[in-house]
């Protein structure tokens, strides 16, 4: 067999690489070259000056995928710098891109979200320079907050009643909540913060990854029937 191999979907691959003003949805199976096409498109954006690397967001599912992509982009940029076939302008832009690779948003969705919030914290109701807790610190903070809430709620009959209503709205409004003595004991500790709300403030200045919202916290976590 002789001659250059041309894949059946070459046109689609070319479109991904060259049609830089078009928004595309690419669907393909594992191992078909999605990452290669993505790198090609990024190279097209950078080398033509359409965008600099620090103005491109590439979102991946895992940290390892992000690291691999960064590595491949770096490799492509370094090869482009030495590619005599490219014009001087394109090669210079690729050289700039190598310096920008650490600033590029090639990251997981969570990292991207955290970066967005770091850039615009006040709009999200967060203090500037907030830090995202690691998993262990977040779990410890959660335990502390859970105990504090439990202490406060269960030490006071009025808050206990309010709690019961939030748990069993259909019955608590019409019957004495204390008529279900074992319900409260059967309530389980929620598994994690469930949504963003007001920032959880701690003396160390950290903001919990997910914040405290009592009513939502309970939804779907109660074992009461």
């Amino acid at each position, binding site marked *: 067999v002789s001659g250059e191999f041309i894949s059946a979907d070459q046109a689609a691959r070319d479109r991904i690489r060259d049609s830089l003003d078009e928004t595309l949805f690419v669907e393909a199976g594992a191992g078909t070259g999605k990452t290669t096409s993505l790198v090609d498109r990024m190279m097209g954006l950078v080398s033509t000056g359409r965008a600099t690397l620090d103005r491109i967001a590439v979102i991946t599912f895992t940290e390892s995928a992000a690291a691999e992509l960064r590595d491949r982009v770096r490799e492509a940029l370094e090869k482009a710098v030495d590619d005599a076939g490219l014009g001087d302008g394109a090669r210079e832009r690729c050289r700039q891109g190598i310096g920008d690779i650490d600033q590029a948003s090639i990251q997981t969705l969570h990292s991207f979200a955290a970066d967005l919030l770091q850039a615009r914290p006040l709009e999200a109701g967060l203090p*500037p320079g907030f830090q995202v807790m690691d998993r262990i610190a977040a779990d410890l903070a959660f335990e502390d907050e859970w105990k504090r809430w439990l202490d406060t709620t269960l030490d006071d009959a009025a808050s206990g009643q309010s709690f019961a209503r939030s748990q069993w709205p259909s019955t608590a409004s019409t019957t004495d909540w204390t008529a279900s003595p074992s319900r409260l004991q059967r309530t389980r500790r929620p598994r994690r913060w469930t949504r963003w709300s007001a920032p959880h403030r701690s003396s160390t200045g950290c903001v919990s990854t997910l914040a405290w919202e009592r009513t939502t916290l309970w939804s779907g976590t109660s074992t009461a029937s």
Partner: protein
Amino acid sequence: MGPLAGARVRLRRLVDELKSGDPLDPVTVVVPSTYAALSLRQETGRSGMANVRFVVLARLSELLGAPTLSADMRRPMTHLIEASGVRTVAAAAEGPLASTRDHPQTRRSLRNTFRQLRHASPAALDRLSDGPSVPAETVRLYRRFREVTGPYYDREELAQSAAVSVRALGAEDGQTTGLDEMGPVIVYLVHDFSPGERELVEALANRSSCALLLGLTGDAEADRPLHATAERFLSTFGPPEMWADDSRPTSSHLVVAPNGQQEVRWAIRHMLKASQDGVPFHRMAVLYRKTEPYGVLIREEMELAGLPVAGPDTTPLSQRAAGRTLLGLLKLSTGELSRDAVMAWLTSCPIRSPDRTRGAQVSPTEWDLISRKALIVRGREQWLDRLDSHAARVSKRADASTELGDMSESSATRLHREARASQALKGFISKLADDIRPTHSGSSWAEFSQWARGLMEGYFDHRAGLPPVEADSEQRVTEMLLELEGADELEPRPSLAVFVQAIEESLESAGGHLGQTGRGVFVGPLGSAVGLEFDLVHVAGMVEGAVPPKSRDDPLVPDRDRRRAGGQAQGLPLQQAHRAEERYDYLAALATSRSRVLSYPVSDPIGGRTHYPSRWFLEEASSLEGAPVYTSTLDGMSHRPWLSRIASVEAFLETNETGGIGQTGAGEVLADIHDYDLGSIWQWRGAGCRVSQHPLVLETHLAGGFELDAGRLSQRLTRWDGDVSAVATDAHRIDPTDRTSDSPSRLERWARCPFSYLLGYELKLGALERPEDITTISPADKGLLIHRILELFISEVLEQGEFPSASQPWNDEHRTKLHRIAGAAFGEAESTGTTGKAVLWELERREILSDLDSFLEADNRQRERFGTATTFVEARFGMPGSSAAQSWPGASIELPDGTSLRFHGLIDRVDVTSSGRDALVIDYKTGSAAPYSGIAKDQIDRGRRLQLPVYSLAARGALGEEVGVHAAYWFVSEREGFKLAPPEPVALDDVLEQFEGAVTTIVSGIREGLFPANPGQPRQGSFENCRYCDFDSLCPAYRDVAWRRKKADPRLARYRKLADPVDEGQS
């Protein structure tokens, strides 16, 4: 000769030239850091140079500028004053910053931004003010900050003042004492000048001899700011001397380690090898970019290996002993004196009692136990009341037991000691509660400071044998508190919360030094090494995202606004400048030595993350390879001489490539004794020998470990899983028949799980619940409470002659009486803390009252059914030391070997018919009836239900042999329907033989010292004997497998027959 050797030679020549032939003429050298100053001072000392002063720029500014500012009554702006100023203006933040203005992180961000705005021109600030709301508000606050901190001068103002002084004095008469003492000035390798500092250097250059030596890295990005600096100084100095590290390193090596710890241990082995080759420790350095985890990790591993360390102390004061002590005290002062907080403080800090009299020592572990037993959760009054009650309870128990003779002397002594310790703790808490209440809240910083210093004086234990760095921390805390006294001018009348915030923020800073420079291996951040010179430098943590760190835009004044306002040219630093700075620090760190090692850990086990190599790590790899190297291709380069890859500890031991670099298998240097031991055992195994026979194993506790492992896997009960027969000798008998008397529940426990018996009754262990975790009354405490109420009620009715006949129901008066008694008992229980949280207790209380009401109805039916005429309640039997009026005689049985076993106990209730010929022994039960389901078929339930036969024996002994005794458990709750178990009470004579057989088996097993762990049948995710066992977490997860293995031991045949009759039948 290091890469900076050329610059150093030039410096030496310059010094010689500037001394004008007189070696004693003064010369001042301005250096980039105090460590560079120390290093050069030692070097010049060795070379015989005299009267050369090495200072950092800030110190030079202070020497020349501070006198003028002090004369104007200006004071230095310390970090505390700066923080106070920031706090003052942040409190008045408006618009977009209003909602987060009280957050400590907002204050930190404002402080950082204010520092960056310090060099901005007025025009740039004006432009920012006219822009978007966030930068505009930030600039407004900054200007306000400058106003309120007006009486204080910062580093920039100091430099400007120094420049003015130099110019003024030079113009007047050319004479100034300070300057004359300094002599000519050489600015050596300083790379970062503020506008004021540039002004000062120019003033010095215009007045007298001054030379400037700049150090280049050879990298365009990193050197850009330096070229800009040279440009600015052009008119003053002409083209400055620039020294570049353009030489190739003599040795460069890369290391890929499995984690940070192995990475650091590799560096230690490498340094030890270098030391053997003649490199002194002070000529080596380990540098890092990220303080977390390397600041602590490197220091700890080096201490473990016995290597001396020198360099900056990166541990915040808040983590030092004195800082922790002060923070703990302040936390207590703002909290509710919770037991958790008090114990955390006591057990993590060197605390002494402010009461210096004898016997007032702090005993954290003992106090923790006592506070748990006393069920203390929080609050001064609760501490004092419950400690008092606990002490009284313990003393009473000790006294009563001594009187009755049912407790050994040592046990009674122990209880008396516990009572004394409770009182000591009460005294400590009482004093602490008074001391932590600031008497001058809202008055002044000075008074708060005095109060805090008094607390430290009273509670921080100076004599605790602290290492020097910890002892120094106390001095630093005291200095900080003294410094705070000056904050009244900025923030008058602070609240306690503000004072605590100020302390917290101040203690977050690090400072101080570790070890002695010139003796130990230099350990510090990359930036701290600029201007130093080593023979070997190791840069650890070369991880993507950390070296260089991803630069973050300032959300308060972002780059786009800074650019709009003029950017760098107008004194507003941009992110690009930070990146250049990072690059410069990294290359300057590499330039400290011609022999370099870069390393990175593949994973972070604690964070559960995978790391990837830094771009700069790959850059070095590419340079060594002579071709581009990427993360993906690095994996295939394990055999390159410039790369060491440590796959695991085992792989290291196998190849032992520490010696190192490029000489696989040639190394013999080990980091410490643990490396030696592991390597030795590894080689032994490699030679085909059994690890368990290695001399290191046989000589240490490891041998026990191997024996334990083999023993537990065997089909015999061993000393590792409950066989104590070897120690159950005549001298240490554990024979129930030796005791004065026994309780049936002890024997039941052995029948259920002998191992649990061993731990609970022979070793006297038990789990002590944290009072904070008591949310609701425990089933045991609830049972005690109901028993107590029923006992008091029926006793009172009997005393008053009101006990109804069999056909007569309880009336309303009885019901009222029962409620009154219950109410009093509830009150007592609440005061002890056993009832848990108020809301849940209310539910339980209502449930108990409802059960008590139903009890009266059920009791009517019960008495009518049985024909009860009278009853005995809480009938004691066999109580040691009791008189016949106080206690019935004990029950006893003869064992086949002729010995007898005596029992004591307390029967809830014995109902007697009007004829007196029949008695019904009742044992109240308040929990679930499910565990008792077995007695319907087997009245003693495999030896696990012995109470009824024992109580029946006691009742017969008291009432007469002619009385027919029956017995049953009575479940006195609505949930269990007030049913009897078994439904037909058991006649004593029907179970006696079976009972004696079970007791004989149990006593034999205990005598023989056999205590296997028997989990019983699987039940609801656990096992029937483990669900409520205190020692559940001590047994292995595969406990059922272990029991199946152990029960093959022939010595357990009798127990097996008792505990697993079905299993036995099948086998």
